[in-house]
């Protein structure tokens, strides 16, 4: 009897142990980055010595990183803004399904999600050079916009589907024109989806490496490119401090996505 009890206890703990191992594997790299960012030991990897914020202070004094950070922010805002500007009207038209191509456009957007970013980067670089367009922040924003637009569309479409269509009709019956209806009835209702799409696009653009490697120049390096270039010469906890900043940013956005707009992102 006792042996069976022990076995069943072991049997009940094994799933938990497995789950803990899997989550350690998933979150392990992030934990290592966080520990390193707050560890006073000057190289990396190392055992935890003592808590410090000096790497963040050092980071703030490095002009190359602050400039790259600002570039990343502006590219992210630009791409997320442009993608929203183009993607939200498209989503409204997709959800209405009033013309024959609507379904096809939706399918195309889902297909564009699977185009390998590397192939897209190669393609855009070759096209820009074929047309003799100089690479700049603008071309970088355009490239990021293409990458993030499917996420904006997905978020907007999913919240448009929960919208009450009769409110729109009621507004029009009461004499509102199409534009007023759009701005005062439709857009306020899908605010959650719009902000979720914007936030997600911003983060996806901010962390993107592949497109930026191909399309940024020395003057327009984004933060990840700058960090990877730095990491090729040496490993410093300062780099981990940047990682900690990004983790913090991602945490805010993911809590926001979970709480405010319940959007399923990747499935």
């Amino acid at each position, binding site marked *: 009897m006792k042996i069976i009890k022990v076995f069943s206890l072991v049997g009940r703990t094994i799933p938990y142990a497995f*789950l803990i191992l*899997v*989550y350690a*594997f*998933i979150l*392990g*790299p*992030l934990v*290592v980055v966080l520990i390193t960012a707050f560890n006073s030991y000057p190289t990396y*990897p*190392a055992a935890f010595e003592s808590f410090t914020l000096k790497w963040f202070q050092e980071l703030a004094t490095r002009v190359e990183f602050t400039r790259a950070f600002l570039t990343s922010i502006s590219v992210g805002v630009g791409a997320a803004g442009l993608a929203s*500007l*183009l993607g939200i*009207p*498209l989503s409204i*038209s*997709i959800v209405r399904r*009033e013309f024959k191509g*609507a379904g096809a*456009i939706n399918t*195309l957007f889902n*297909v*564009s999600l*699977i*185009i*390998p970013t*590397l*192939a*897209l980067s*190669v*393609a*855009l*670089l*070759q*096209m820009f050079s074929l047309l003799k367009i100089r690479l700049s922040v603008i071309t970088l924003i355009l*490239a990021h916009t*293409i990458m993030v*637009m499917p996420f904006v569309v997905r978020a907007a479409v999913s919240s448009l589907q929960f919208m009450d269509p009769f409110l729109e*009709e009621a507004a029009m*019956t009461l004499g509102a024109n*199409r534009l007023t209806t759009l701005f005062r009835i439709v857009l306020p209702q899908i605010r959650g989806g719009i902000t979720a799409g914007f936030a997600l696009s911003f*983060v996806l653009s*901010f*962390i993107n*490496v*592949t497109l930026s490697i191909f399309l940024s120049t020395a003057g327009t390096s984004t933060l*990840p490119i700058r*960090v990877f270039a730095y*990491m090729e010469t040496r490993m410093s906890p300062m780099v*981990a401090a*940047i990682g900690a900043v*990004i*983790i913090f940013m*991602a*945490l805010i956005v*993911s809590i926001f996505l*979970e709480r405010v707009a319940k959007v399923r*992102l*990747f*499935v």
Partner: protein
Amino acid sequence: MNMEMPSSERNPTGIEKGRIQKTTADNGYRWRSKHLGSILLAIPAVFFNVVFLIAPLIVVLYYSLQQSSLEFVAQGNGGLSFSNYSYFFSQPYYQGIIFRSLRLSALATVGSLVIGYVTSLVLRGMAEKLGSTPVLILSFPILCGPIVTIMGWMGMMTSKGVLGHIIALVNSLPLFPDIPTLLLGTDAAVVIGMIHFNLTFVIFNLVNVMFVIPRELEEAAMVLGASRWQVFRCILWPLSLPGVFAASLISFALSMSSFVTPSYLGNAARPILTTQISKFMFSTYNWQLASTASVVLLVISLIIVILQSMAFRRVSTLKRWVGE
């Protein structure tokens, strides 16, 4: 219908009726103008995608058919031909790269599928207690991006890092061959990085199916005297197969197109398809071959998507069958 009945009863003035009549009366006009409005709303985004997504892909296709700048390839008349493709597929070096990509992707797929399947089985058992939060936590590293995860792996995969210590521990056991403690720069490191990235998507796809399978089926089988193994073998496994199919396809596609992980965790002297494309672009400046390899990558992804849409149809059939 039932909902509207009382309101029209409460509304004997006939306003409701009038409103309905009005909308049906000008329906033809309304429909047409709305139709136009919908098209106008779609035009900017579609135009943008044609210019910055479809046109570039056509440029890549064009470059891949152009004569390569390599002299031993250029034997034709300078027009468009498939010479890059035949060169790319005939050279043993590039064949090796394709096979390495396929092998590493297959390993990553098997690895993430095994881990992911067991994880989603466990999560299914705990869904009542834990809710969907554990599944959401999984997507967090994706939002942090490749830069943070690779930074972390670089710290873990050296001989002084966590994984280095674990390997040293394994090496100290009898019967095990000596594994080098420096994981960074090996194919194993690339596969681990790929599994880490793919696992989220694999679990999402599996959970999508697993959480739909009704618990009553299991309970019924148990009541009828089936063992846990039989329940798994005869109920859970066959019903989760569409999810397994979808998850393995997405994992394979993600591995084939992963670029950042292999270029920072792998060995530059042993490139895979994606890292070779970037070599073509920036080291050998052979844009024709870069395009050729990119088209190969695109075709592989396209095949996977077609297979995946077939799997997706089976997932939705399952959902319809269980009434979700």
